[in-house]
């Protein structure tokens, strides 16, 4: 049993137990985790205890939560009290936060059984998990290939059946791209929908937590649980979680689906073929395909790779070896800072800190960061115009299927291009999700990305559900 909703139904109806479910998943982890490396940490004992508690509650006739007994994994950049949270970085290795992230509290309150913390590109900076300080995660569908990133561990964990669902974070595509590459569903909600409190910040104005699941219904169920206003996050939208499961069967009849005519180049033919098939499926289901132009899309990469590193350079300055995490001892404070950060951060993280510090520094601010913020506005305006004519937009999630390890590690820019379709959504703050829609000639999955406007999750999920039915 893989599906979240089936697990909850089985446990609450008594046809199975949370303990049986968690053991089944732990067994799968035991069998394949050695080759996959989806996890930084598996909290098997705690998971067994939590499952036993759910079983007691069910037996006692108590009301259990919407995720009762569901084995879930967390990207290892979400704070879990007393449980190591590393961001796959040496600088935080061994750190046990004294508090839980809001999403973690929500999961616990809903009865989820947290099974472990998943691997990622260090501080969520990357598209392959090759930037993890603890070694990469392998794509469960072909272990010679990357799972995508940065939430590669969370995507792989669902794809391999280690958990029924997982949470990732998405700053420029870090949920959607690995979802596409691992053949699972991944959702980046509207910025402000899911609390960021306790999510270790990469780029604060772009980061958003979202679910990985094996189908659209599970994603809707999980997103309903983790969404909603959090007074601990000033950027949290003061509205209750949207009802998503209820709209899944409403179809797309009469909907206007956007096709971007000036999509950036560089997409593999297989991927474009599947995109056309997706439009056909939508047309067959009664939707109209409408051409839209997003002329600023070509500048997204530049805007993103100035804004995100700038924010990151500030967010990651706190790793200074003083209050938590690791320190390289030195006789002098400034030497300690430099030695700690030099040995604690990996290459990509350092590169982005350098780029961001430069973009914010005196004399360069206006030319780089200041300009990037204006380009961000252009992109947002482009989308606003497009959404006057369409309800959603479909694009590929990733320009290619899962690539081989090492194929892009020498060229940072080539790696950055993996995010070309996912980044615009983060800049605009909109929701988007990736739905598996067939495979390429290499038999690896291809994801179609459904984009919607701010708070457009219901519409987005209707289309995603339709795509899933057609796949």
């Amino acid at each position, binding site marked *: 049993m893989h599906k979240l909703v089936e697990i909850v139904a089985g446990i609450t109806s008594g046809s199975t137990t949370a303990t049986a479910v968690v053991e089944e998943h732990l067994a799968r982890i035991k069998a394949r985790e050695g080759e996959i490396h989806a996890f930084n940490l598996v909290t098997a004992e705690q998971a067994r205890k939590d499952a036993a508690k759910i079983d007691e509650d069910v037996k006692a006739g108590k009301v259990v939560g919407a995720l009762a007994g569901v084995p879930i994994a967390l990207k290892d950049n*979400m*704070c879990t009290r007393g449980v190591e*949270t590393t*961001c796959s970085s040496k600088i*935080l290795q061994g*750190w046990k*936060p*004294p*508090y839980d*992230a809001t999403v973690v509290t929500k999961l616990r309150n809903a009865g989820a059984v947290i099974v472990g913390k998943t691997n990622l590109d260090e501080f969520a900076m990357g598209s392959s998990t090759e930037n993890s300080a603890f070694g990469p995660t392998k794509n469960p569908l072909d272990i010679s290939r990357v799972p995508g990133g940065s939430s590669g561990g969370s995507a792989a964990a669902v794809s391999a059946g280690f958990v029924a669902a997982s949470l990732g974070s998405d700053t420029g595509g870090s949920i959607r791209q690995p979802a596409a590459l691992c053949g699972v569903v991944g959702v980046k909600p509207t910025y402000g929908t899911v609390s*960021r*409190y*306790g*999510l*270790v*910040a990469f*780029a*604060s*104005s772009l980061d958003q937590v979202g679910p990985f699941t094996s189908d659209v219904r599970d994603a809707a169920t999980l997103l309903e649980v983790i969404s909603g206003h959090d*007074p*601990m*996050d*000033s*950027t949290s939208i003061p509205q209750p979680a949207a009802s998503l499961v209820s709209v899944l069967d409403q179809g797309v009849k009469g909907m206007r689906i956007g096709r971007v005519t000036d999509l950036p180049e560089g997409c593999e033919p297989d991927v474009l073929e599947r995109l056309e098939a997706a439009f056909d499926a939508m047309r067959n289901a009664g939707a109209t395909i409408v051409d839209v132009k997003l002329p600023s899309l070509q500048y997204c990469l530049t805007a993103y790779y100035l804004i995100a590193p*700038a*924010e990151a*350079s*500030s967010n990651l*300055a*706190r790793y*200074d070896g*003083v*209050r*938590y995490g690791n320190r390289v001892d030195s006789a002098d*404070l*400034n030497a300690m*800072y430099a030695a700690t950060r030099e040995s604690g951060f990996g290459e990509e993280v350092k590169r982005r800190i350098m780029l961001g*510090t430069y973009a*914010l*520094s*005196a004399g360069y*601010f206006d030319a780089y*960061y200041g300009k990037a913020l204006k380009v961000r506005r252009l992109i947002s305006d482009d989308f606003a115009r497009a959404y006057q004519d369409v309800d959603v937009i479909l694009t590929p999630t990733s320009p290619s299927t899962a690539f081989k390890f090492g194929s892009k590690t020498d060229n940072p820019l080539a790696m950055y291009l993996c995010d070309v379709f996912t980044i615009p959504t983060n800049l605009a703050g909109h929701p988007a999700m990736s739905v598996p829609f067939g495979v390429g000639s290499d038999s690896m999955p291809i994801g179609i990305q459904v984009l919607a406007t701010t708070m457009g999750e219901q519409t987005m999920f209707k289309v995603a559900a339709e795509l899933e039915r057609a796949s």
Partner: protein
Amino acid sequence: MSDNTTLPNGWQLVVGLEVHVELATKTKMFSASTNRFGDEPNTNIDPVTLGLPGALPVLNKHAVELAMRIGLALNCKVQPCTFHRKNYFYPDLPKAYQITQYDHPLNVDGFLMLPGDVRIGIERAHLEEDTGKSTHFGGSSGRIHGSDYSLLDYNRAGVPLVEIVSRPDIRTSEQARQYVAELRAILLAVGASDAKMEEGSMRCDVNVSVHKAGTPFGTRCEIKNVNSIRSVGRAIDYEARRQVDLIESGGTVRQETRHWDDATGRTETLRTKEDADDYRYFLEPDLVPLVPEQSWIDQVRAELPVLPARRRNALAELCGVDKDGESAFVVVERGQDEYVVEVINCGGDPRRSVIYVQQAFAEQGPKPKVPARDLAALTILERDAKVTSTQAKTLLTDLIEAGGGDVVAMAAKRGFEALDTGALEAMVDAAIAAEPGAWQKYCAGEEKALGALVGAIMKSSKGKADGKAVTAILQSKRKK
């Protein structure tokens, strides 16, 4: 002393002040961690205070309100504003950035009036967060330089601050002292801060430059660690002289930050402009704009108390004392001006009422225990010369100790009744006769000898004689 007349050769002083004030909130600027001075180290901490990964700031509404009170009391415009990150590394700064206000502060363009109708412009009064506290150990000095290690306490980290930046309108060190004193009085009056300079809840950075009239301002130095109103004056005087001496001996003033050493009475270089950090200010993405509604601003304005300057003016006029003088300042600062009015309403002598309260009610707070009518009765006894001023002082002490009472009965109990001038003269003559040596010395101009004579008279009158009257008689007799 301390005005520009002490600067030689036509040099003039230009001073601007940056005053940091900790706000009197229950919790911190951006989190629910307790804001309290003097607790055990690191016992008022939470994820936000420590800058833990994943922690996010949420603005304290009461801190905003207190900042608005300050702004409105300083005649500022309260405006829509934003928060920025000021990025720099220091162990007392947990996130390695301070959240502060940059190009859009909450309060702008105000002013503060000093005695003599001197108007000091207020450029801005903005919100920010305090840092933690480092203590340096080892080495010889206890200063950061040469220490072996430092220990950090983050209780103060994230405490709400308002930074009040004056325009460079201050021209004398006396004005600078008055400015700080007046600002402190306002902060206390509006309840925004306890403004204790000795505990660091009010801290001054002083910008000093010198120039000659008609020429542009000189290069300024910023002086830190100025921890009392007295030090403000001393530091400015020292720094102004240093700059003038430097220029006159052919040197140039470098823009730099200097440290005031209260013990040596000198300033010394802390860091120069060249090694100043590049703070990489950018809009804090974890916070949203603050746009105070007009109705909120109006409400805060309406709830502001009458400010100290107006209260001093009213008190001074009522009591016939100088509005810029010590008694009006002290009594208003202690919040005892309403009490003085009450005393006067009970028939008290206005001038004596305010002076009694100034001199004897330092420990009494805004609502002294002594009933206003009792104090009023005492001022009348003295005014009408029923008791001498010395006796009145004794009775005032009795009154405070007893927490009130019938002063006429108290005077009778002590056997106080003022002696008339005739009786006094007789006593003076008797004393001169009894102490001829002292009298001779006194007549020869030895003022110390007066003490023996007055002492003899006080003894013979059993303390009933008025010391001032006795002295006056002795002086007039000597002239003859």
